[in-house]
Structures are given as C-alpha cells and as structure tokens.
C-alpha cells in the first residue's frame, strides 16, 4: 500500500499539468457561437470594485467602468464621460462637462452628483492610495450644475488628467453600486458601471460572463458575450485552447515565452506580439552590501549580455533595453550613452575598485568580504528564475557570486519592502503610469525605487528634483528636470534595464480584429470579433 501510494504520488507529480481541467466541457457557446468569445484568465476577477486594488482584476475593472477622460492611442487625453474640460490658469482646478447620454447598466443616469460621490469616496480612503499622487492632490469636488463638476486641487499637478484616465481608482460606479455604509472601501453592493460590458454571471474562481451593454454611449462592442474562465495553470490553459474550450489566451502573464513559442510552432493558432509596453529592469539596492559600490553597479551593467538573454531566455520576444523608459515615452527621448556588453571593462572596473581575484578563488574579495549579490525572486515565477540563473552563471565568470533566494510571495514582498537584497526584478508599469509615477515611487518609503536611490550621495538632490517635476506646470522646466533626473539615474547606474516588455496573445483562427491596448493591463475586447 505504501509502495503504491508513493508511486502514485510521484506519477501525479510528473504529469501534474496533464490532468488539469478535464471535467468541464465546452459550455454556453450553444445559441449563437459566432458572437461569443471565451478566454482564460489566471485569477478570479474579484468583486470588481472600481475604487480598490487586488483582488480586483484590472482588465475586468476596465470592461465595466468608465473614466472622465481616457488615454488615447497617441498618448493624448481624450473625452470619455466628460465631453470637455477646462483647466484654471493657475492649474489648481479643472471643470468637466459630462456627457448627457450616459446610462449606467441599472438604467440610472450619470450626474454631477454621482461623479462627486465617486471621487469623494476615493479621496476619503486616501490611505489606500498613498502611492497615487492624484488622490492626495484633490482638495474637493464642487457640483456646478447637473452636468458640470469642478475638481479643486491643493496644488498644481501636471499629470492630473493622465491619472484620471487610470483603470483604477477614479472610475465611476452607479449610485446603486455603493454599499450601505456609503464608502466603497468596504466593498461594493453590485458592479454597476457605464462601460461597454455588463457582468451578467459570475462564479468565484470558476468563470465570469460579460454581456455587451446595449446602451453604451460610445462605440459598442462587436461581440455579444465574453466568457472568462479562470484557469490558474499555464499547461491547463494551453490544453484548454487545444481542446477548444477557450478561444484566446491574452497577455504575457498567462504564457511564458517558451509556451508562446510552443503554441506558435504548432501553426494552428494566430499569434501576435505587441509594441513595447513597459521595461523589465533590475533594480539595485544602494543601501545594502556590495551594491553600495558604484563600480560594482557599473561593472554588472557591462557584464550583462542582453541579446543572449533575450534570444535564449525570452525566446526573442522582447527588445534590448538600455534606458529606463523606451524612447517614445513622454520626456524619454534623451541621449544617454549605453552600457554595452563588455566583459573586459567590467573586470577592469572591479579591479579598480579593489575587488581582487585571489589565485585559485572563484569569487572576488575585498578586505575579506566576498563579492556576493543577494537576489530574491518569487518562487512561482519561472521566467525570473531562468533569467537569474543565467546571470548567476554568466557573472560567475567575472568572479561575482550570486546567491539566489526563491521565496514564497509574501516573504518575497516583505524582503523587497525591507530592502534585504542587492538586486531585484522590477517592471515599470507602462502608460499612462510611466514615466512620472514610476519616478515618483523613488521618493516613497519602502519602495524598490527608494532603495535604488537612497544610498547615493546625490539622493537628496534627486528626491528634490522628483518632487519638483510633478508639481511643475511649465512644460520646458519639466523637460529639463526630467532630463536631469534620467541623467542621474543613468550615471549612478542604479537601474539595469533588461528589455522592453511586450504583450502577446494566442488565439484560434476564428477570431478577428485582435489588437493590444496601449495600457498593458487592458484587454481591448471591444474591438475583437468572431468570424
């Protein structure tokens, strides 16, 4: 019995993925198969509270709720629930005129009062949004008439409109969606929004069904229904696609590069890669251990063969990155000399800083201290692990020891918050967050960006400049400040950009008009069609 059970256990371990999701048969595509799309998602969508974060999933929040203004494909702010807006000359207040024809999915109408209620409830709960300047900067909301609201700010804040367009937390919930306590920090009563989709059916950790909002004020979706199946395991998702249980796997969060390529190679599906959406970076901790030494940071920058990493670990799906933000992002077109792959230079830098390689030793030492980098990673993230394992063996050749610590999610977050690392993986967030919000986190306590700059001699100057740049109302001054900030970040080598991340999707051949959204967390289901 014992023998048998241990054998079975191992067997189950070996084919762990093969048995996922066998039980559920293709469902609900019966009536009109042409207008229903089924896709997979990693996690449950949560309560879909527009004003809060995890476990609410961004893509679902974006499907149900609308912002006052939206972030256009070209980076310009465009009308959404507000048809027009006006900034006061001192930059301290904005007046919005709302659309007259917006109906929530419960039939109620969008009014100035409702907008005020939404913004007030978010501002009330400002502790939850401390990372977000827009919430801190709103002073109060005035109702001018039924379709006009004025938002007064405490101080001028240039990215105000940009941050209003974020998927969360400033999108609008209908009055009937508010809970009895009146504040959405306690959750919501019903997910009632004005967006292109309505949540019509939902079973936790199983599926969610979205139906087209026939009263949507904008361009209506072409699909009639979207069914989202929650499938946490990548192999199970791939098999579900193979069986026809789902039509679409969207996003790099759902498939590792190797899995994407495996599906692409079968030739049975359409595959698509997006433009760069954000930057994969390694962030140094300048307050901890050997990475306080600038030469070490510089040497590592030169000792990193990005192209090999991208070709073999990321299967060529991303592009080499040498700057924190891709050129083309706001204020990011700055000429900076790249740290190119050059092992000789790296070795020289380490020698210069006194990190010597004793004969017979594998790793460099200085005053008895070994050149060891502590690199933690989330033990569930296979791609990160592979990248680090590659670095571990590559850096061994120049005498740098890498100590990899795979940790459970909570522990990993705690380590990142307390700064117990030399190097950590961190992505920027893409538009509309980049560059200003990513830069701003560098001044926030316990953030990864904070540990990156805190140990620098120029830390104070940098922090002051970041404080200034988000307050500045003058475009020219802003540009100059950003340039100086990017320059410092680059010279001090506190971030090591790896690649510009891309998003990708795999779909069966029945889907058409597939595309990506500029915002990497949004799934532009509105445009998708079934042939």
């Amino acid at each position, binding site marked *: 019995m014992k023998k048998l059970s241990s054998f079975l256990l191992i*067997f189950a371990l*070996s084919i762990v993925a093969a048995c996922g999701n066998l039980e559920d048969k293709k469902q609900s595509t019966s009536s009109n198969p042409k207008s229903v799309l089924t896709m997979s998602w990693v996690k449950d969508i949560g309560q879909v509270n527009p004003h809060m974060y995890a476990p609410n999933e961004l893509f679902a929040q974006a499907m149900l709720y609308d912002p006052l203004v939206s972030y256009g494909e070209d980076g310009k702010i465009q009308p959404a629930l507000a048809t027009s807006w006006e900034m006061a000359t001192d930059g301290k207040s904005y007046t919005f005129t709302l659309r007259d024809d917006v109906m929530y999915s419960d039939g109620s109408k969008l009014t100035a009062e409702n907008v005020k209620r939404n913004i007030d409830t978010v501002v009330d709960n400002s502790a939850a949004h401390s990372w977000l300047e827009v919430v801190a900067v709103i002073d109060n909301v005035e109702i001018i008439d039924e379709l006009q609201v004025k938002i007064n700010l405490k101080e001028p804040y240039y990215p105000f409109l940009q941050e209003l367009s974020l998927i969360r937390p400033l999108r609008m919930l209908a009055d009937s969606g508010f809970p009895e306590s009146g504040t959405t920090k306690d959750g919501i009563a019903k997910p009632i929004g004005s967006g292109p989709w309505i949540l019509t059916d939902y079973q936790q950790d199983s599926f969610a069904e979205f139906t087209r909002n026939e009263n949507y004020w904008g361009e209506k979706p072409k699909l009639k229904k979207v069914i989202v199946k929650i499938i946490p395991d990548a192999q199970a998702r791939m098999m579900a696609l193979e069986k026809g249980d789902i039509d679409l796997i969207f996003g790099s969060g759902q498939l590792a590069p190797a899995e994407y390529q*495996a599906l692409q190679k079968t030739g049975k599906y359409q595959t698509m890669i997006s433009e760069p959406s954000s930057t994969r970076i390694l962030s140094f901790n300048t307050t901890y251990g050997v990475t306080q030494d600038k030469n070490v940071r510089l040497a590592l920058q030169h000792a990193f063969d990005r192209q090999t990493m991208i070709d073999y670990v990321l299967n060529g799906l991303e592009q080499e990155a040498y700057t924190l933000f891709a050129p083309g992002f706001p204020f990011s077109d700055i000429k900076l000399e790249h740290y190119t792959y050059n092992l000789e230079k790296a070795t020289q830098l380490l020698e210069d800083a006194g990190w010597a390689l004793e004969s017979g030793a594998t790793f460099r030492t200085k005053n008895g201290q070994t050149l060891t980098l502590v690199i933690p990673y989330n033990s569930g993230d296979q791609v990160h692990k592979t990248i*680090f394992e590659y670095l571990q063996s590559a850096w061994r050749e120049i005498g740098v020891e890498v100590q990899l610590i795979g940790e459970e999610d*909570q522990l990993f977050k705690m380590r990142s918050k307390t700064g117990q690392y030399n190097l950590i993986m961190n992505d920027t967030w893409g538009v509309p967050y980049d560059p200003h919000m990513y830069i701003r986190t560098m001044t926030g306590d316990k953030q990864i960006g904070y540990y990156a700059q805190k140990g620098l001699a120029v830390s104070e100057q940098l922090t002051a400049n970041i404080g200034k740049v988000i307050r500045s109302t003058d475009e020219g001054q802003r540009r100059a400040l950003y340039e100086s900030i990017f320059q410092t970040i680059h010279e001090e080598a506190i971030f090591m950009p790896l690649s510009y991340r891309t998003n990708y999707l795999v779909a069966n051949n029945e889907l058409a008009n597939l595309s990506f959204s500029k915002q990497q967390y949004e799934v532009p289901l509105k445009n998708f069609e079934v042939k």
Partner: protein
Amino acid sequence: MKKKIALISSSVLVLLLIAMAIFAPWLAPNDPYATNMALKLQGFSTDYPLGTDYLGRCVLSRLLYGARVSLFIALSVLVVTLFISMFVGLLAGYVGGIVDLVLMRICDIFLAIPDFVFALVIVGALGGGIRNMFIAIVLVSWVGFARIIRNMVRSLKESTYVQYARTIGVPKRKIMIRHIVPFVFPQILLLKLIGLGSTILLISELSFLGLGVSAPMAEWGMMISDSKTYLMSHPMLMFLPGIMISFTVLILNWFGDALREAMDPKAI
C-alpha cells in the same frame, strides 16, 4: 530463500544508488552548473547523453548530482531525527509522569497537522534553501518515532529483567543505556530506513514548489518544476527526473520491506 533474494537484490540497488551519489563528480560527463545558452534544449547526444535543459546544462550530470542532494539530506535527516526521537522517547517513556505528559502533548500538536503542510509552513516562514528545508523536514519527522520509542520503553520498563536491574540498584542512566537502548535502537533504525523514501519525496515536493534547494543546485523536484514550461515541447525534461524519483523511492521502500521481513523474529 525468496526473502533472501529480495534482500540481496534490493541491497545491491541501494548500494548502486549510493555509489551513484558518491561518485557523481567522476560519473558525470559534464559540469552540472555550466550553462551554454546556444545548446539549450538539445536532444540525446554523445556529449550530452540525456540532452540539455533550458539553460543548456547537461541533464545526465544534473540527475547524478541530484541523487547527492536527495540522499545526503535524507540520510542527515535520518541521523538527526534518530537522536531527537530517541532522546524524547526515552525521556518520556522512562521518566513518565509530568515529563511524559508534556512531551506527548507536544507530539500530539505536531501530529495533528499533516507532515507536508507543516513543512510547507515552516519553509514558508523561514525562507527556502537547503538549511531551512532540512530544519523543516527534521521538525516534522521526529514526532512519530518519538512516540513509538516512548511506547516501547514503557513496556520494556515493566519487563522482568529491567525490574531486576532496578531492584539490585542499577542507576537509572545505566539501565537506559545498557538494558533499554540496545533493544529499541535496531527496531527504530529499521523503521527509519523504511521512512527514507518518504523523506526523499518530501524534499522533492518542497523543491518542486520552489521552496527547497536554491538554484543552481541540481535537485530532482526542482528539475521537474523547472521543466513545466517545456512539457509540451520537451517532455523528457520532466520525465527523467520523475523516473529518478520514482525509482529511488521504490528501491528504498523495497529495501526497507525486505530488511524488515528478514529481521522479523517470528519468521525464523
């Protein structure tokens, strides 16, 4: 006779396994840690008899080194828990009273939680790595044996030869060492050997979840976990370490069973 064959053949297999672990550096055709991105995910070849993994490392070499990790940890756990269980079991069984009560209630607490879940919690709290995994496995596996030893000691304590020893005034410590331990020890060693397989499984399970050994160390459970992404394209990466774990556990269980039957006094 049949028993003897089973014992001999299983012993040979166990010895082979141990030899494989000890002589891994000489047997392995390549450096198990040397990556070569240009040669990643290769099939079987003369340079790489069992192919290469996602970083271009030699799979055969990693499997051989993996045997070292599993067997080394499992055997160290065996030795350490043997001492802990013996100590606790003897103390509780022989001294009795309040000491027995307290120690056994502690055991109850440990026994109330499934081994694997408990180990997972400990490793989760302490962080991964060989040392923490070792601590976790020791903590979950001493309990059951301590209880068995305690019960054995209690019944031995009432046996006539111990009673005599006590009557003629042999000190307690001497009774324990001379009259009780020699009787208990071989039986417990046997039980421990039978449990070796499940310890190896536990190591692999924790490593599979990324909470066991840390990279780049080769470990079978971690090799399975690492190859999840390549299940569709390169299934061998997952099967090979899976086969290794299965065989190792089967061999050890078989060996334990054969040993127990051979030593069973009723059978003679």
